[in-house]
């Protein structure tokens, strides 16, 4: 488990000054930290969206989410050695969606009626399976992965390098991550609030018997939920890997932050996942900067405390409305 600690400490952290001046004395440092916090928070947000998507549509918490995302990112990497960026990207999304749907059908459907513990255990099985498979197929060495140059026909955007306003800079990649998070959230919002498919998915998560009685093919909805979630997870993986490189541990390392984000947002709210992700990102960065260095690194502790605090004070999160079910 050492890998997790190391991987987290190894990236996204801005240089920690030995004794940082308080925010009012160096506002640009503060602004810089907030911005980088938003950058890393966007990563957490996308993975949190994937978590929320499955939870909201199938009532299962997927502990294998990070590993599935990592696995599909390796698939993207393999595709990219064969074809240009965009086809590889969309093909990956397709493969991920098919994989997610197939997993739901094969291993989650059989425990659907059983207590929630059984489903959690199955997703933990997925966790170790995907880690193991990725190690076996792609090996333990990190792979170079981006930042890419996006080709939009009429213009190109190189995601490498920063954009600056005065002293405060942010990586272009971070901006792209943030934009991607917002786009995914908007798409999910439209799906759930404005389409019949989304409505049927929400109904399925809530009451399966009633859903069947109005004619919703419940099994298909569950598969769609997993498929969509796996695709969103793949997007998360692609961005995480561009930020920190691609290795078997890189997604597992941020799963705790994604969970913290999802919990903060209420586990079933896409908007909540984004707000939660950004909050965790910023708080984590500020803690990293202003907590005295003698204390040591506290990024995980911050996530842990946030999770515990939210669960104690408001278990439905900030944006969650749903009452807790299936104890």
């Amino acid at each position: 488990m050492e890998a997790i600690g190391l991987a987290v400490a190894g990236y996204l952290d801005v240089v920690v000054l030995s004794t940082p001046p308080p925010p009012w004395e160096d506002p640009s440092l503060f602004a810089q930290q907030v911005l980088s916090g938003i950058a890393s928070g966007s990563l957490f947000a996308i993975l949190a969206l994937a978590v929320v998507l499955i939870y909201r549509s199938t009532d299962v918490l997927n502990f294998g989410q990070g590993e599935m995302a990592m696995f599909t990112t390796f698939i993207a990497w393999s595709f990219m050695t064969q074809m240009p960026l965009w086809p590889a990207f969309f093909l990956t999304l397709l493969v991920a969606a098919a994989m997610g749907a197939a997993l739901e059908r094969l291993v989650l459907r059989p425990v659907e009626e059983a207590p929630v513990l059984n489903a959690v255990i199955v997703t933990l099985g997925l966790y170790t399976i995907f880690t193991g498979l990725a190690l076996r197929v792609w090996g333990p060495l990190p792979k170079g992965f981006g930042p890419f140059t996006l080709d939009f026909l009429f213009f190109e955007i190189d995601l490498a390098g920063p954009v600056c306003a005065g002293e405060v800079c942010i990586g272009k990649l971070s901006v792209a991550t943030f934009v991607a998070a917002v786009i995914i959230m908007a798409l999910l919002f439209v799906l759930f609030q404005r389409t019949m498919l989304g409505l049927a998915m929400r109904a399925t998560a809530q009451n399966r018997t009633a859903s069947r009685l109005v004619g919703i093919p419940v099994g298909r909805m569950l598969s769609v939920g997993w498929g969509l979630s796996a695709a969103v997870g793949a997007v998360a993986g692609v961005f995480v890997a561009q930020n920190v490189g691609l290795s078997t541990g890189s997604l597992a390392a941020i799963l705790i932050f994604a969970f913290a984000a999802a919990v903060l947002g209420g586990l079933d709210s896409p908007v909540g996942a984004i707000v939660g992700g950004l909050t965790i990102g910023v708080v984590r960065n500020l803690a990293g900067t202003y907590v005295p260095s003698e204390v040591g690194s506290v990024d995980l502790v911050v996530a842990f405390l946030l999770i515990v605090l939210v669960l104690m004070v408001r278990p439905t999160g900030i944006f969650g409305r749903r009452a807790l079910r299936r104890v």
Partner: protein
Amino acid sequence: MAAALLRPRTLGFALLAVVLVIFPYLHGWPVFSAFISEFRTFNATMLAVWLLVVLSMNLLTGYSGQISLGHAAVVLVGAYTAGVLVDQLGVPLPLAILLAGVFTGIAGGVIIGLPAVRLAGPYLAIATFSLVITLPQILKMGGIRNWTNPSRGISIDAVQPPGLVDGFLDERQWLYYITMATAVFMTILAWNLVRSRIGRAFVALRDSEIAAEQMGINVPLYKALAFGISSFYAGIAGGLYFMVLAFVHPESLGFLDSILFLVAIVVGGLATILGSIFGAFFLTFQGELIDELATIIPEAEKLRGVIYGSLLIVVMILFPRGMAGFVQDLVRTLGRITAARRHGGLSSNPPAQDDTNGESDAQGR
């Protein structure tokens, strides 16, 4: 009376006791030395430690239905408590282990148990997941790290047998006896616990909190109690773990171990003592089994994670009652066959409610 002593179960337990007592000497005996190496004594010692870990996990997750993905962290807290007590305060090791159990039990009951009262399954899973991921970082934080020594961990000299038994026992055998004795004692304790009012309350609140409440069970109290008792077991197990390995480090036990513990209770059988024993065997020998497998299928070593995961999923789907469920069904079927042969049989000992009484599977809701 004499007839009771000759019942198969009594005989079985007597035989088991004899085996446990003579086990560390078996490797020196003529026939047995052929297939039992001296190293097996260490295996058996670790088996005792894992037994307590699995029992602890089963009390919480199997019987009480509270999902814990952070059990490795709880065991680690036990190990570290014992370590710090010995290393920093010079507390004698046996006392340190007992204190580790008490401290972990209270901490688990109050710090995790009381808040957990309000948490439904998935939330509890997230909270305990984040605990096990975060604990190493907590152990490395300033203020604490002077005690925990994260860079090198805490190590002690191997435990020596006391003068009284010196000469009869070597270190390894002595370690085996005290660990195994503790484990056996606590297993019997757990056996009684799950059959007591408390144990039945645990099962009731697992099956339906609402129903449990209507039966007059104080749900928050019993939930916290489940965490407390389970953590006590985990703490003792952690203390013994420290004693046996004479070493502890912030990364000694982590999330993957938590998953392994879960595999152990699931494969062994949720909510059974027998299943916990199977689970302990699994934890002790899984590494060796996979190494063994690797000599046949070279890929096995690399596919460790895939094997664990598949095992977890396959067992969960096909045999949700684990090995213990399988054995119980077998015993029941055999019992029925013999009873049928005896043509109705004697009503004094109907096989169906013999040793499965009070043992219930996790599918019970």
